[in-house]
């Protein structure tokens, strides 16, 4: 009896003792989703938040774009390395000498997912839908570059024949522009320009009103390299390789699984648990430890965005350019980036990120503390004396707070200027921005396409995104002329002029240019650093 009693005990002890060992060596681990995906060419991608919609006409966000680029293909698509426009549904195109008329030749083997050909009429119908006022598409104004589109969208005419989009036959599409625009082809890769299968939309609801359920997996028709198979909100979106896509032979991934994870920390844990090939973001607090311990999975790519502070130039003291410039010149951006942010950001001395489609601003709004003190004195506030109470408004976020505190310290130390910090929930802050109920406001701008105009247009006098109250006729004229200039050097000269005017007047303080910090498994290949963080999926593959 005693003997037989001892045996199981020792066996049990061995088992218990070996448990941590087993676990540590991975014997109890299941095959991770990443390993599984590497074998079957299934990419598991975090996209940050739940997409609001997969209807290209009704989306505005980044996550939506990242899914839609798998499902749909526009006339042109993007080069995987530098995103320059390359043939998509259109195999080639011609531009008239005055830069106003583009003729696109659609490939005859471009297909919808049900096998029907993608025709020029599909594109015309699609442009018509997004421009129809009843659809209330948020980004309809992106198509205003088409001749007559603005008038149609604003209801001045109901005759779509007046709009510069004509199907010459099944495979030839003619687009006429309001003015020459060298960035026109780059625009075409954005969701508002993607073809929507208008002819079959009536099956699931009204064609020109919101609330149509055509984008559900059961009813969607798309024309991109992948087809929507599953869409469980807040969980997963599954896109599988499309057999009807014209270039299917060159698509190497079999499927992409998109994960809408709105918590950066949860996403990072999923990445570490082997559920994701790549995350949408990485927690700022962990960048340093990733740099130290697992640099191979940390990626820091430049990103087409600028973080800046706006002044309300309608109210004293910021109606005085000297006060604005004084505050701008007292900011040490290098210290901000290297000591506070630590995510590889580049200090911003201009609004437009350097190297945006070959343009880098020559004018600079840098650091010059002596000049800043002089300016403040000249404005009647020596060492900050006599200034009214000043306030920086930012939307509630840990990052915005530490940046505001850093600037608060710099202004106090270098200029003797005291500012208080106020945080508000995001939409409340946006409402204050609209009503001009702020003095200094935290802001940012993310470019929509690779061209300096996507930044500089923001501060045109009539821009709905300006909010500073600052307007300058020369600035507006330079941008107006640039929009109508096709030659690159001449356009860039006009941008230089505009940017110099903006930085001299300083209705804003550019602080830093964005980087995209995320986690990436080394098995993901073809994921090039691109300024817009676009990664044409047909050039991506996985290695074991």
């Amino acid at each position, binding site marked *: 009896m005693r003997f037989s009693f001892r045996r199981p005990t020792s066996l049990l002890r061995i088992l218990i003792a070996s448990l941590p060992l087993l*676990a540590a060596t991975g014997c109890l*681990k299941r095959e991770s989703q990443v390993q599984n995906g590497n074998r079957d060419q299934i990419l598991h991608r975090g996209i940050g938040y739940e997409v609001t919609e997969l209807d290209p006409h009704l989306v505005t966000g980044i996550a939506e774009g990242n899914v839609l680029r798998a499902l749909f293909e526009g006339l042109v698509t993007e080069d995987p390395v530098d995103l320059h426009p390359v043939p998509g549904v259109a195999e080639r195109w011609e531009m008239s000498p005055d830069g106003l008329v583009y003729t696109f030749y659609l490939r005859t083997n471009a297909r919808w997912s049900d096998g029907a050909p993608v025709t020029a009429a599909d594109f015309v119908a699609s442009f018509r839908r997004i421009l129809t006022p009843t659809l209330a598409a948020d980004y309809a104004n992106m198509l205003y570059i088409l001749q007559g589109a603005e008038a149609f969208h*604003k209801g001045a005419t109901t005759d779509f024949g007046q709009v510069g989009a004509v199907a010459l036959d099944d495979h030839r599409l003619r687009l006429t522009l309001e003015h020459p625009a060298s960035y026109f082809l780059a625009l075409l890769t954005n969701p508002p320009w993607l073809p929507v299968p208008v002819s079959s939309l009536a099956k699931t609801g009204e064609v020109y009103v919101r609330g149509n359920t055509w984008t559900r997996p059961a009813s969607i028709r798309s024309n991109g390299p992948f087809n929507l198979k599953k869409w469980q*909100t807040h969980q997963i979106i599954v896109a599988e390789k499309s057999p009807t896509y014209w270039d299917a032979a060159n698509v190497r991934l079999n499927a992409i699984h998109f994960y809408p994870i709105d918590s950066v*920390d949860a996403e990072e*844990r999923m990445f570490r648990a082997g559920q994701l090939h790549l995350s949408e973001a990485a927690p700022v607090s962990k960048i340093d430890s990733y740099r130290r311990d697992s640099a191979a999975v940390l990626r820091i790519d430049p990103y087409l965005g600028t973080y800046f502070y706006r002044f309300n130039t309608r109210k004293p003291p910021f109606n005085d350019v000297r006060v604005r410039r004084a505050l701008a010149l007292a900011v040490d951006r290098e210290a901000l980036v290297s000591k506070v942010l630590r995510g590889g950001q580049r200090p911003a001395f201009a609004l437009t990120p350097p190297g945006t489609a070959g343009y880098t601003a020559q004018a600079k709004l840098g650091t010059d503390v002596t000049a800043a003190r002089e300016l403040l004195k000249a404005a009647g506030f020596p060492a900050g004396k006599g200034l009214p109470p000043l306030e920086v408004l930012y939307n509630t976020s840990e990052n915005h707070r530490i940046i505001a505190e850093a600037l608060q310290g710099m202004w106090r130390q270098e200029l003797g200027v005291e500012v208080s910090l106020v945080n508000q929930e995001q939409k*409340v802050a946006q409402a204050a921005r609209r009503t001009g109920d702020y003095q200094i406001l935290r802001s940012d701008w993310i470019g929509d396409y690779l061209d300096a105009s996507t930044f500089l247009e923001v501060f045109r006098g009539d821009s709905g995104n300006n909010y500073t109250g600052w307007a300058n006729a020369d600035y507006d004229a330079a941008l107006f002329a640039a929009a109508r200039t096709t030659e690159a050097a001449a356009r860039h000269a006009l941008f230089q002029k505009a940017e110099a005017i903006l930085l001299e007047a300083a209705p804003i303080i550019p602080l830093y240019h964005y980087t995209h910090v995320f986690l990436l498994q080394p098995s993901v290949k073809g994921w090039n650093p691109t300024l817009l963080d676009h990664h044409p999926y047909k050039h991506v593959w996985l290695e074991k």
Partner: protein
Amino acid sequence: MLRFITSRLLQSLLALFLVITATFFMIRFVPGGPFTAEKAVTPEILRNLEAHYGLDKPLWRQYLDYLGSLARGDLGPSFKYPNRTVNEIIADKVPVSAELGGLALGFALVLGVGLGTVAAVRRNTWMDYTASTIGMFGISIPTFVVGPLLVLGFAIHLGWFNASGWYGPLDRVLPAFVLGLAYAAPISRLTRGGMLEVLHQDFIRTARAKGASEFRVVTRHALRGGLLPVVSFLGPAVAGILTGSFVIETIFQIPGIGREFVNSAFNRDYTLVLGTVILYAGLIMTLNLVVDIIQAWMNPKVRLEG
């Protein structure tokens, strides 16, 4: 009994109506709207959007319209998700929260009542102290600490579970455990208190005197009275647990109604805010009514009178 229930139902309906009215107007007076965004829409597009959602009408008209469609069971379209209705979102998310809540609640009851009973029966012994310690830990350590710690151990290091998500049966284990733990702690404290009170009463002494076994005394006689405080706690707790826990749903990225409830307010998704508030308020009222009825059944001292 019937009179009691009818009058309580009428009171609840009135309260619900007041909640709806207050929410409708309060969310409208919050700065910012569903269409305020970092990149502004043009004035024409804003007008189109407002026309589509009826926001161009006077507020009182919108309020009456809303009540009208509500009477037909239509909670309206979501502002944030342009091709989805609030009914659809709620129907999609509530079952997930209910499943998580049900599992967590089952676990919490078994653990909480078990620990509490043992603690009461073996009062002031090491068993009581152990149970109380577990209870105190459960109350004082928040779920947003326990959750990530368990993920770190069981998902990242051991690789037994997914770190988050709601894809298969295994994904239910960690969130239900963490959420259940948070509720087990107060349940065990309440059970212990309730049992201690009951175990000293005459009818228990009578039961013992009749020769009933200790097990029988506890389970058949004492528990019914001892659980009364737990039952009144469970009313609002069940409503909370079934409509989702924002924290747990965020840590484990569970597609439940709790996140929609919180995020709809940030998004100024007016109709979704109202829909989730109505759901939550309705559930709390129903469950409180149910609790009152159950308490009357469990404790003859309570009389059901309006």
